[in-house]
């Protein structure tokens, strides 16, 4: 039973970055800008928040107020993501450049910049930023004492409990509310479907697209921090393709927040099965094949492909995404 709790807990911790980054991608695409730079945004968010965590650790502030320090780190990640994403907005909204090219440039810039910066700060070859251990929330934070043998519930909740999890779930609720229940959400969606019509009733399409991209930067940056925590081995100037994975989650989730939540859990489950395959008893072990764990590592990608192929008939992207808005075409 404990292994089941283990798997569930790992699924949640891996689903959180996918969820928040896919929500970010949704904000951007719903406003009409394809954000292929999510990978780069995640790296930049993770880089600056991890640098903050290290400095908080050194000053001793973090060990005394772990939750507050983590909250600040989340804000740092979001802020760094916003600033980085504005470069995408500048290229694709103001200058009407090709959105995939600008995004590709940012994706290439981010990991190189992270390596150069960590190399410059920590010395040659030292490109891993180690996250301090106090970021994990333990039972004692709630006045509980951890038992000797953690039961099912304790394992599920506290094995991988970080502040990013509740924050992202709150952000999901806010997203649902903002997209469907506010004037802003309606206008944002209008800009992604028919910007000419939105403009004709007095909505500033450029401003809304900037905001859409900036929100995706905020959420993407937080996702970068969440990923680095989930990966567990510190920040290594990469998020292992999670930004692109999140785009697939967004498409599978049909650009709708609650479906994205489901899709993120689905993908994370397969990802976890891939990495836990050796310790799950009921899976076939392919004993005649060398390095058979690659079969399970491949699994989430194959499942993604199959799901995309079978759901593609129903998938409905925002109509105007990818097309720079030109006022003179109204």
């Amino acid at each position, binding site marked *: 039973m404990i292994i089941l709790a283990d798997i569930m807990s790992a699924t949640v911790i891996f689903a959180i970055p996918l969820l928040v980054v896919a929500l970010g991608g949704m904000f951007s695409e719903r406003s009409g800008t394809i954000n292929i730079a999510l990978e780069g945004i995640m790296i930049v968010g993770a880089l600056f928040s991890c640098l903050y965590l290290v400095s908080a650790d050194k000053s001793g502030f973090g060990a005394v107020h772990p939750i507050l320090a983590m909250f600040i780190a989340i804000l740092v990640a979001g802020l760094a993501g916003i600033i980085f994403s504005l470069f995408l907005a500048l290229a694709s909204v103001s200058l009407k450049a090709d959105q995939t090219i600008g995004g590709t440039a940012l994706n290439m*810039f981010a990991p*190189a*910049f992270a390596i150069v910066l960590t*190399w410059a700060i920590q010395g040659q070859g030292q490109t891993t930023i180690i996250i301090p251990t106090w970021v994990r929330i333990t039972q004692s934070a709630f006045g509980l004492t951890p038992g000797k043998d953690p039961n099912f519930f304790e394992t599920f909740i506290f094995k991988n409990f970080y502040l990013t999890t509740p924050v992202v779930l709150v952000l999901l609720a806010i997203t649902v509310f903002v997209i469907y229940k506010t004037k802003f959400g309606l206008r944002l969606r209008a800009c992604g479907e028919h910007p000419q019509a939105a403009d004709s009733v007095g909505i500033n399409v450029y401003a809304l697209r900037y905001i859409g991209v900036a929100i995706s930067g905020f959420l993407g940056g937080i996702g970068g921090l969440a990923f680095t925590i989930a990966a567990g081995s510190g920040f290594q100037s990469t998020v292992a393709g999670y930004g692109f994975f999140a785009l697939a989650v967004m498409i599978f989730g049909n650009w709708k927040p609650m479906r994205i939540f489901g899709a993120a859990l689905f993908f994370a489950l397969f990802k976890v099965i891939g990495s836990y395959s050796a310790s799950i008893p009921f899976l076939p072990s392919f004993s005649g094949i060398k390095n058979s764990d690659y079969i399970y590592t*491949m699994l989430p990608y194959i499942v993604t*492909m199959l799901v995309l192929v079978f759901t*593609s008939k129903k998938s409905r992207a925002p109509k105007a995404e*990818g097309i720079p808005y030109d006022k003179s075409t109204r």
Partner: protein
Amino acid sequence: MTTKIKKFVQSPGLSSFFASVASIGIGLIFGYILLAFINPSMSFYGLGKILFAGASSAEKISKVLYQAAPLMLTGLSVGFAFKTGLFNIGATGQYTVGAFFALYAGIVLKMPWWAALLAAMLGGMIWGAFPGVCKALFNVNEVITSIMFNWIGLFAVNLTLSNIPKILDKISANRTVNLAAANKSAIIPKWGLDKLFGSPYMNISILITAAVAIIIFIVLNKTTFGYELKACGYNRNASIYAGINAKRNIVLSMVISGGLAGIGGGIYYLSGTAQFLVIKSLLNMGFNGIPVALLATSNPVGIIFSSLFISYIQVGGEAMQPQFSPEIINIIISVIIYLSAFSMLLKGLINRILTRQNARKEKEKVLHSSAGNRGDGIVTDAAISNKSESEGVTK
């Protein structure tokens, strides 16, 4: 005579060349600022290495050419897809599968080098076909599909390699066996170029890839087939209306694009100086094809030069170790691509200024001959700006 010069100055090729040179210049300045920021006293040393290390010796030049060959092919792969309206971010997966096919053909089946290269092309074509079919039949975005197939390809190749003991090195099982020991005929011939340059890295691969680039140029610009592929890229609905089979063309252009990346993988690992490593991260060669293609605005002949340039500064970047990390080169390249995203804007601006001047002159002419037609200037303006738009990279 003057009209000829004017035509040359206004030609879209020249303005895109100037736009690329300007982006390269700004990218290098940005790189220098970064160097000065990290280590002010060594910054000139670093810049000197970036600019001149690639040409400092015959050995370095052959290293540049050696790395430029596969880069050129992945650049052609990405550029070909761009020309037909597709974004093939999966060149790295097709490159990996191509490399595996080439090594299998060379080491296990004992084929000669040219047959192994054809096998590599076949491997890349198969891996390019998947995103093409998904796009054509199921309308799944090719960017997502090719990313997924990058990882599937990498893991599938690793899994297969681990289970073919013949292909692996006896001492360290995570790499393929040395080609010189397994099958000498599978090594790409050198034609004495290695002696001329005094480096084992030198072989005829750069000549092969340049020939491939020219073939692709002819196919795209001089054949009906190439015209159809490009038409599908510019406007899919219009080309369907004109009787072009768009679905077939999407699959074909992804297959050709994948085949090009596949040859790239073959050409690198059949050089006899590289051994394929079983690792869990994607190979960068495929991703670096993207900047190569963008810098050349996907023009196959331009890709010959842009791949040489990128390979050149990469060799320079390796030479600035240990004072600076070689990733600075990636930063410079990314700045160059970011700026090249505006190059169409810049080109349009240059053209508009030129045509406005022309229009004014023409207007004066018309006034002088006292048969005023005000529409003239506007028509030429619109026609030329259309032309400049259609020259650029289309998504």
